[in-house]
């Protein structure tokens, strides 16, 4: 791996993310697409704020991890994939579920533990799933999803189709064995998999540089000859473009690829974490790079949208989120008689084939 990959192909240096970079929106971007990215980022923002509120009202239980601060990373990532591509994530995945196109109603209903949720209320916040949207699950065991994605990519290669499998994980997950085994396996079998590392700079209370021998996490591919790059996770277009490059490599060359998006967790690890271990100044600094208002400003400055347009999006998003809460609230809980459903898959096809 060359050090040149520390630079983005467009020459901008993506390795320092502590200063707001001057971002000019590319001329050739479709205006509607840009507005749509903003819309989606705002949806994730408001959805997560609402999840926090609903947790505090005891509508949501268990562990609940939010994507607040990671909106550009989430939306850029989803935009870089094609609908036919598959996705695995960790437990901080509400935004990815929305980004894959799962209805906000079904995501909120899952958080409420309702039968109408995207995992039928069985999984909760950490375990969203939709075959239709090719989200092959959020996973609560750190790193557990990574080998699964390699296996899905194996199935794709085996069948000779051209989907890509992307697997999202946090920085903390890159310190565990499953990650390294996965890189090696993906490389020796030449599998179309994208390792998407969301470096939000903390795994619970552990800063990246304390948990990882190298803090530029994309470089961890080096020992396996797996290519990679780092992008500014606050820049939705940069993330999208990096994921597109990765997808091209995976799809056309059948080579794994690492994209590391440097992002920032605005709040504690989960909704119940008071976040006392992070330096106040650091948190202030991190939050000041907030990608959502920043992107709104860029759109305004480029005259792609006006204040009225922004307000309209705001109202629309508010409405969608309140509707999701209403839907979740009014949906039924799974019937207790269904407790034993799904422990084993049905074997009816065995009968049929007789």
């Amino acid at each position, binding site marked *: 791996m060359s050090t040149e990959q520390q630079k983005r192909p467009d020459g901008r240096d993506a390795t320092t993310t502590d200063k707001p970079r001057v971002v000019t929106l590319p001329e050739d971007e479709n205006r509607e697409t840009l507005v749509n990215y903003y819309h989606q980022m705002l949806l994730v923002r408001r959805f997560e704020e609402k999840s926090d509120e609903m947790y505090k009202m005891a509508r949501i239980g268990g562990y609940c991890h939010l994507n607040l601060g990671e909106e550009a990373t989430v939306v850029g990532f989803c935009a870089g994939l094609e609908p036919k591509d598959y996705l695995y994530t960790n437990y901080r995945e509400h935004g990815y579920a929305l980004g894959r196109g799962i209805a906000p109603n079904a995501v909120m209903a899952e958080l409420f533990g309702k039968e109408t949720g995207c995992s039928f209320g069985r999984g909760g916040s950490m375990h969203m799933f939709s075959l239709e949207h090719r989200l092959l699950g959020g996973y609560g065991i750190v790193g557990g999803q990574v080998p699964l994605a390699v296996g899905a990519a194996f199935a794709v290669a085996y069948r000779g189709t051209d989907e890509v499998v992307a697997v999202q994980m946090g920085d903390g997950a890159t310190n*565990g064995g499953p990650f390294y085994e996965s890189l090696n396996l993906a490389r020796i079998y030449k599998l179309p998999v994208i390792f998407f590392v969301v470096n939000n700079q903390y795994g619970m209370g552990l800063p990246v540089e304390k948990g990882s021998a190298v803090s530029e996490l994309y470089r961890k591919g080096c020992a396996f000859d797996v290519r990679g790059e780092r992008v500014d996770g606050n820049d939705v277009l940069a993330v999208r473009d990096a994921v597109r490059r990765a997808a091209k490599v995976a799809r056309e060359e059948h080579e794994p690829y690492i994209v590391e998006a440097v992002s920032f967790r605005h709040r504690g690890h989960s909704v119940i974490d008071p976040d006392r271990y992070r330096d106040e100044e650091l948190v202030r600094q991190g939050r000041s790079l907030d990608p959502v208002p920043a992107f709104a400003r860029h759109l305004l400055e480029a005259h792609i949208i006006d204040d009225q347009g922004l307000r309209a999006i705001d109202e629309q998003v508010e409405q969608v989120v309140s509707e999701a809460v209403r839907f979740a609230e009014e949906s039924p809980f799974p019937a207790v008689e269904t407790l034993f459903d799904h422990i084993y898959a049905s074997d009816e096809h065995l009968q049929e084939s007789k």
Partner: protein
Amino acid sequence: MAEISFRQALNDTLREELKRDDNVFLMGEEIGVFEGSYKITAGLLKEFGARRVVDTPIAENGFIGMAVGSAMLGLRPVVEIMTFNFIALAMDEILNHAAKIHYMFGGQTPVPLVIRTPGGGGQQLSATHSQNLEVWFAHIPGLHVVAPSNPADAKGMLKTAIRNNNPVIFIEHLGLYNTRGSVPDGDYLVPFGKAKIAKEGTDLTIISYSRMAAMALDVARRLEQENKWSVEVVDLRSLRPLDKETIVNSVKKTGRAIVFEEDWRSYGIGAEIAATVQEEAFDYLDAPVKRVANVEVPLPYSKPLESAALTGAKQLLDAINELAPRRRR
């Protein structure tokens, strides 16, 4: 004697043992700066520094293996696995290394290791985060497995665990951390392999451990107050070694037994105890041994489903009502 929480008892004990022996050190995810996911290690990094309280990355197999290796050179690692579920990632180091090294090398190197970890469901943490896996470990010769139910035993058994020369799986419970009880001062040690009669009784015996033992004790006391049944509660405390003698003697006295456990029923602790009782007290039994355990399903997230899957005081009461001798009331 001070009245303190289970959490405080563990915290105090770790502090005392760190002070007592420089070979003792703590290791685990988020135990230092974050002060422990469940705050068991609060304040210890400040007091003892990063040499003794080691924050690890999320690499369970790696750092448990490290702990085993350090124990081979005489250190006494006390490792926290954030919750019982994550121990799965370290199974090989525990099963094939920690539990084997002393035997396989002809007794040349002990492995004085403690792994502390909380189990427990009931907080809507769903299928992968709510498990009770004590049976996995209780099955393995070479390990000690203990599961105290109250602050005093937590202290006494953690001390024994740390000073013991073998790998110990020290099972805590999320639902016990805030419970309180009086704890003897000073160097208080509870031996392994000694069950405790938590309450005497004559009608039937409940055999349990960890949080379910605490719950069984509450139920038994309530029944006594209500003047219903006289229930004896055997708190195992130690699952391996298992105090068969206390179990068998109690069942010989009462003639009836219920095993109350929070893991899945099949192949569970209850199966082992029921087998022991029929082997050693068959002629004394007035009824078959009953098992009250969790329903056999991966724990679902949704509250009504989760509640239906967990065992608790109600299930225990039902079993008592079915099993208790009819002669009374």
